[in-house]
């Protein structure tokens, strides 16, 4: 998938050749910082990016159909019933002048349910996410932050989509509420069986809840691995740097350095590997040729010249 933003300085290469697959019932974690393109790719899948964004290549195959080929009418039917999205900060997703009940039933009625059925389902959904059904008649500002996020999750699950995209759903929440929500999501997933594309900058969070994790940097995926393996054996220098940015609450205190420098300007990204200006292990080849993705072991791939000779090893 390729996504560009048109700006007066030139097109911003927000997403450049990103590929990944999501199997039924698994949680794919997408980790990256600001400017990595992780939110862009999520919005691009559903084709809800605002101008001046353009998708300039790639496919998104879902149940045999390419989302990039769909027209408006098909997309309207497709969205929410097949893939739904939970945005960062429910404050932005909920309409402040409509009751929650109306926002919940709105999407169901739009997809063909009767008002009565929709209301019945609304009660079920609130039960599912752990909010008292009588709060259905509240306005968003009358609910706490955690409840609002749960309401947004309920709306996302309204049409039982097989895939849920969650874009930083807990970033704006306190850590205790965050844990609550994550447990809720895990329970829901076990109960209903949907897959999740979970996007966040918090790598420690992802290790706890994902099946597999992809690390994004400057619009590209630099490493993909099962969650546990990524945590125990990170390969890409950026992944290592990220791990080195999270202080721990237990164990010995080490000195953490983070990663020097800042993410590149995506109008003119660095030649070769986009990470090389900040990489402690950069070699001359890194400045010239962009590394191809190598598969190191089953399901663990990395895009880095350090592993040029290790393809297929182990």
């Amino acid at each position, binding site marked *: 998938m390729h996504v560009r933003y048109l700006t007066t300085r030139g097109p911003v290469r927000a997403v450049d050749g990103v590929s990944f697959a999501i199997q039924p019932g698994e949680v794919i974690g997408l980790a990256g*910082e*600001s400017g990595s393109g992780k939110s862009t790719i999520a919005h691009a899948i559903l084709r809800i990016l605002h101008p001046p964004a353009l998708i300039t290549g790639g496919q998104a195959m879902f149940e045999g159909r390419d989302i990039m080929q769909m027209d408006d009418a098909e997309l309207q039917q497709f969205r929410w019933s097949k893939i739904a999205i939970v945005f960062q900060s429910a404050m932005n997703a909920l309409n402040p002048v409509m009751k929650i009940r109306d926002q919940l039933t709105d999407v169901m009625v739009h997809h063909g349910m009767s008002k009565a059925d929709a209301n019945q389902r609304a009660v079920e959904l609130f039960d599912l996410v752990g909010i008292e059904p009588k709060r259905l008649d509240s306005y968003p500002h009358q609910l*706490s932050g*955690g*409840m609002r996020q749960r309401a947004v999750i309920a709306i996302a699950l309204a049409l039982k989509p097989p895939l849920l995209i969650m874009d930083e759903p807990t970033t704006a929440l*306190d*850590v*205790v*509420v*965050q*844990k*609550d929500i994550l*447990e809720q999501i895990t329970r829901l997933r076990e109960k209903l069986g949907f897959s999740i594309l979970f996007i966040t*900058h*918090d*790598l*420690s*969070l992802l*290790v*706890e809840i994902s099946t597999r994790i992809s690390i994004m940097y400057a619009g590209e995926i630099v490493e993909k691995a099962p969650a*546990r393996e990524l*945590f125990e054996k990170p390969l890409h220098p950026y992944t290592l*740097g*990220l791990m*080195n*940015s*999270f*202080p*721990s*609450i*237990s*164990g010995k*205190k080490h*000195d*953490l*350095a*983070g*990663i*020097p420098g*800042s*993410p590149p300007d995506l109008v003119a990204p660095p030649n070769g590997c986009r990470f090389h200006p900040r990489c402690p292990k950069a070699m001359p080849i890194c400045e010239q040729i962009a590394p191809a993705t190598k598969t190191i072991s089953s399901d663990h791939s990395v895009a880095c010249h350090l592993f040029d000779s290790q393809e297929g090893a182990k």
Partner: protein
Amino acid sequence: MITATLQTKSILDVRNLTKHFPVGTFISPKQVHAVENVSFSVQRGQVVALVGESGSGKTTTIRMVARLIPATEGEIFFKGVDVLKSEPHEASLGYRRLVQLIFQDPFASLNPVHTIEHHLARPLVIHKKASDSQEIHNRVCELLETVELKPAVAIASRYPHQLSGGQRQRVAIARALAVDPELILADEPISMLDVSIRMGVLNLIHRLKTERGISFVYITHDLASARYIGDQIMVMYAGHMVEGGESEAIMGNPSHPYTQLLLSAVPDPRAGLRTDKNAQARGEVPSLIDPPPGCPFAARCPRVMDICRQVMPEQAVIKPEHWVRCHLFSIAS
């Protein structure tokens, strides 16, 4: 003018600091108890981490210490002198020289129409740290180099929108350093920065503490970074300070049920995937408007007792550098 003084070795002693905001209408006036009877001390050359979630009152507390908002009640002893009594209406220039504040949002704390040089030159001029323009320029470049922003001359002539978030926050730190302060209050300085940039800024703060002996109050909602940089940790909940002490003591033996809850909620992959989450306290932070008497955590506490709903517990000392405000300890001891 009655000037209250205190015999103390700490650089900052806060006693019973309270802030109530009036809300509600003329007919039924109400008060938001944003900060209630908060007391803590900061030793010279130490970092005290103030930990709490949103609504805990930590930002309000620090703004009172910075004299940006007036306190409803309480005393702030800076180097032994109660500044709320010695300069009741406005902070003196002297106080502003000694106590500085760094804001959370690196995008908002710099004026978009002024260059970086202007931002750093103003405090120098106001506090008469430099007189002619050449000296000012030199000092500005020195400050930028102290916070590891190079090349200093180029950065000085830029505008805030041309710098990244991490660079802006370093400029904010440089601005605080310009007046040679003895105490810097940092309000969640890294929470709005990219993850890989955060450690650099925290390490800078640590360096300033060890090399220059500047004391810090570091506000955060993240226990992990509090442990990383804090010598002492104070935990706040719903406007009250509920536990405090040396950071290793708190992390090793969290005593207040809220601290235990906070600790268990932090995702820590190094500790392994934890399936045994203890301290399952459901519910949300209580309303701060005209709160009921007793401990604010009573509604969510898994070990609540009757007395908790009636009386706010006093400080109980567990070890020399570890105290907690919880009836579980005041009864036991």
